[in-house]
């Protein structure tokens, strides 16, 4: 098996582009569809996921040799739940303004598939620095996807960007509803795949 070891930088960039959690891996679709109604929501949830992903990846990577292989999934869930609770509490206590906006999202993170999947696929097999960069890239990739989705849906649904009225009217109110989330995710997925195909073709030709 001649799989080339990825460098830290590659891991980081792959998380954002080549293995983007939403557009490429199609994981964590519930939050992508339910919450990406505005750019701000995307940024807030993205930040929270980034923190939880990095913290959990590092924790699991540190204790990877002590985890009993038969109970690794409960251990991951426990780790994620602990970090989510700690972040939830700290935010509520010391950054009440941000907590007011993201409180609901933070608690949702426990159920995100992307975090468990990264722990299972990567963090439990790799040393700390690599796991850190992988978690960081994945978190940023998730944030990037949520923001682009939020941008499209906010602009079309409410005619606003970052809460500022740019259009002055609401072109397609339907876009703020969850069902339109699926449509947007589908279209964006197609768009990103198309970019990749074009890019690969250029590289060859």
């Amino acid at each position, binding site marked *: 098996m001649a799989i080339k070891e990825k460098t830290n930088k590659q891991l980081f960039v792959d998380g954002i582009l080549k293995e983007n959690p939403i557009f490429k891996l199609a994981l964590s679709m519930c939050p992508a569809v339910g919450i990406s*109604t*505005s750019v701000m929501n995307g940024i807030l949830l993205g930040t929270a996921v980034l923190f939880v992903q990095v913290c959990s990846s590092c924790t699991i990577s540190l204790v990877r040799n002590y985890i*009993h292989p038969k109970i690794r999934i409960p*251990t991951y869930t426990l780790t994620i739940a602990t970090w989510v*609770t700690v972040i939830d*509490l700290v935010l509520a206590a010391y950054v009440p303004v941000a907590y007011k906006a993201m409180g609901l999202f933070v608690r949702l993170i426990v159920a995100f598939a992307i975090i468990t999947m990264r722990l299972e696929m990567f963090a439990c097999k790799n040393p700390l620095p690599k796991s850190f960069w992988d978690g960081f890239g994945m978190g940023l990739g998730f944030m990037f996807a949520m923001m682009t989705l939020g941008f499209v849906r906010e602009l079309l649904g*409410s005619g606003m960007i970052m809460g500022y009225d740019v259009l002055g009217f609401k072109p397609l*109110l339907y876009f703020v509803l969850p069902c339109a989330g699926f449509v947007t995710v589908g279209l964006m997925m197609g768009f990103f795949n198309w970019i990749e195909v074009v890019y690969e073709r250029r590289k060859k030709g």
Partner: protein
Amino acid sequence: MNQIIKITFALTISCVIAASAMGLAYTMTAKAKKHNHHMNVYNAMIGLLGFGEDNPAPSDLKFLNVYRYIVEDGDKKFLGYMVPVEKGTEEAYEMVLIDLEGNFVEKLEVPISAEKAEEAQDRAKALQKVLAAPKIFAYADASVIATSGGKRLGYVLPRKFPGFRTFIHGIVAMDPKFELLGLEIMEHEEDAGLGKEIEQEYFRNQFKGKSYEKLKTLEVVKKPLPVEYKKYLEKSKWEEGMFTEEQIAEIRKQYKDADIYAITASTISSKAVTDGVKNVAKKFAYRIDKLDSVLKKEKIHAAF
């Protein structure tokens, strides 16, 4: 067998570590968290009474809590009001029991300090002493009476009422004549871009200044919100010289008895909030009236 013991042991250890991490975070943040929540509600209440940066609240402004309980004694039901009373310089609490027709039944002294009275658990403990079995009591709600210089400034009512998705937590404020001073939405789970608009000033401020008479028949109308009225309602977006004094007076007069304009595509949420406010206000006005007459008749010197 060996496996089972190993796995059980590993899981137990992980759980203990996780639990202690969470417990540590909780104890470290509990105080600050509570303080934040308290400040949030306090600031909302101050704002609803019309005080702000350019109109500071008087230094002797006091928020007095009246806690309402449902008390059952066998098959008889009473309303129990835990009211702060004046007793020398110290604040004390008395439980005033009123039957369902509004007649005084009995009053009981509640041994609790003002500070502890704000905690639901401490209150229940103190009440257990005076309302011993077979009496059962259940907490219903708390109303806040704002006073300054011995006069009532208004009533602030933190309540929850049904919305489109789940319960909406809001604060309704009324002046002593039961005219609405305003509405603040604290927590809700309505849809973004639709029902979420109930947070917006152009919806909330429509309730401001509605008289008690109008409130009784307040309806939701499915008509577009007039542009000028919307600009007037969005107070935080006012620019200097946007409205003259006369214009403000005129708009206020024109829309004083107007119904509530529904939010586009969210008639149910609009109606839920309007009905909620209507209910809260009507019930409170009736109850405080009854309580006041009982307090007067029995010569109970309440602190408000």
